[in-house]
């Protein structure tokens, strides 16, 4: 079952990334413990060269993880045809107990990797490695998450059995299934629509304000995270219904299928990028007072805030187009 090009690519990528991270760990510990820019010792100069190599390697590792999420979801959707009862990615992810945990772990890795990449980017813009210790401590914190995500992915793919009868998205994302999804799918469309547009407007507005006046960076991150959560809820509550033109089909994965013109990618792509950029704005605020970063942080945060605002705007436009072009009428008048 694992001999699928996408699965091989994902497993190899997780293997390479985990291997590189494990190999980097002793170096990271050495850098955290012994870094001393004032020293001209041979060991220190060696560390200076190593950190350059290490941060390049890690940027590659985390960059790979950003793409891996897209491939993971795309692959899960594509493999649905191989399992009895599967209609979309949900069916594939429900073939065994590791599917959804693997997806959630991959999403977590996506955002953590994005934040680390932003911090690393800021650090490399200063001549005196001001965030060196911080970024390697963060790396050590990220390591177990990434290893867990890799492990879950391996368990998921290795446990895929073609003779398993899986359940489709209709059973998971319906108002009859107890749980949070039922609450969301049963949510009335009008309040959800208002919450959706309000959250995007607040996140975009705050990001634009930050871009203009370099204020409220943490609020940008908070509102971006909130916009992400509300948008995902909105997908369940009303956006997906308009895509399928069906009042009871709430699946957030079927929107990725070719049958629906891959509209989900146009919605999720900007949403994930915008959220990651918004979180990045918040992540660098703590370093705005570092002397060598006084001009770097506002510049980087400004660009990220601009990206976040534009991406949230795209999400709002895409969702609006879906609703406008749908023949389903959830709201009278």
């Amino acid at each position, binding site marked *: 079952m694992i001999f699928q090009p996408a699965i091989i690519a994902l497993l190899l990528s997780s293997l390479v990334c985990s291997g590189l991270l494990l190999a980097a760990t002793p170096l990271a510990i050495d850098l955290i413990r012994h870094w001393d820019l004032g020293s*001209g010792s041979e060991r220190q*100069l060696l560390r200076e060269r190593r950190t350059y190599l290490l941060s390049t390697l890690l940027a590659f590792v985390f960059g790979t993880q950003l793409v891996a999420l897209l491939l993971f979801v795309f692959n899960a959707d594509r493999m649905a045809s191989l399992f009895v009862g599967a209609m979309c990615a949900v069916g594939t992810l429900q073939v065994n107990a590791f599917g959804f945990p693997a997806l959630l772990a991959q999403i977590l890795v996506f955002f953590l990797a994005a934040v680390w990449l932003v911090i690393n980017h800021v650090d490399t813009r200063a001549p005196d*490695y001001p965030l060196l210790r911080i970024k390697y401590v963060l790396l050590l914190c990220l390591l177990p998450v990434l290893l867990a995500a890799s492990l879950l992915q391996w368990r998921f793919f290795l446990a895929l059995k073609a003779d398993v009868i899986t359940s489709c998205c209709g059973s998971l994302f319906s108002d009859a299934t107890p749980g949070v999804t039922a609450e969301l799918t049963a949510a009335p469309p009008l309040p959800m629509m208002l919450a959706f547009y309000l959250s995007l407007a607040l996140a975009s507005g705050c990001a634009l304000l930050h871009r203009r006046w370099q204020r409220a960076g943490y609020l940008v991150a908070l509102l971006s995270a909130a916009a992400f959560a509300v948008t995902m809820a909105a997908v369940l509550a009303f956006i997906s219904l308009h895509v399928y033109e069906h009042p009871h089909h709430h699946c957030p994965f079927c929107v990725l299928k070719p049958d629906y013109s891959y509209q989900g990618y146009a919605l999720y792509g900007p949403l994930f990028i915008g959220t990651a950029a918004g979180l990045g704005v918040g992540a660098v605020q703590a370093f705005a007072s570092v002397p060598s970063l006084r001009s770097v942080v506002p510049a980087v945060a400004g660009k990220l805030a601009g990206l976040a605002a534009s991406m949230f705007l795209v999400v709002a436009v895409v969702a609006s187009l879906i609703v406008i072009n749908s023949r389903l009428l959830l709201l009278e008048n």
Partner: protein
Amino acid sequence: MIELRQIHKTFNAGRENEFRALNGIDLHLPAERVTALRGPSGSGKTTLLSIIGCLARPTSGRVRLHERDISGLPERFLTEIRRCTFGFVFQQFNLISGLSASENVMLPAYPLGGDRRALLARAEQLLAGLRLAHRRTTRVELLSGGEQQRVAIARALINEPPVIIADEPTANLDTALAMEFMAIIEELAHTGRTVLLSSHDPLLVESSLVDRVIDMRDGRIVATAEPAGSGG
């Protein structure tokens, strides 16, 4: 201006062919002076010039430029310093064959992204100052040794660096051309530039042009002298 503290440089460290090119160099190079490094082949002159000019990193020790540590800078900042602070004249000139004299002169300025017309005017002005105006469109491989060196000097000056580094600049020149080179360097020194030379040519090192001579052997400084009658 430039300060070196305990500079060591080891090639192939830990291997059978390990070679210690520099062994604990401590040096202070004042601005607007002409300093010559003198020593036999293998004494570490070129390695030291490479480290000062940010072309190589020391194995240990620090290099400071205007009180700022530059030996530990990430590569992107080092490139900027190399580009704007140092002009290099190499022993073999290292000109790009197939390109004209003026194109060779302009090359180091391309990454800075300035206006091309202004750049061309500056290159031609430099070539004219070195009596090469009539050869500006000639491909460099067709120039004589002396002309090639003057093109190399013009190239070193295109970004208006405050420091000129010349490695064995008279090694491939006859006496007349060596004298011509020294006249050019003297002129540069008078414009307030710091000049660093490496040479074992007595004609150059013992000339009145040089303010300070540093003798090197086996990767160490063995003597420092300020010749009588030097400009400093």
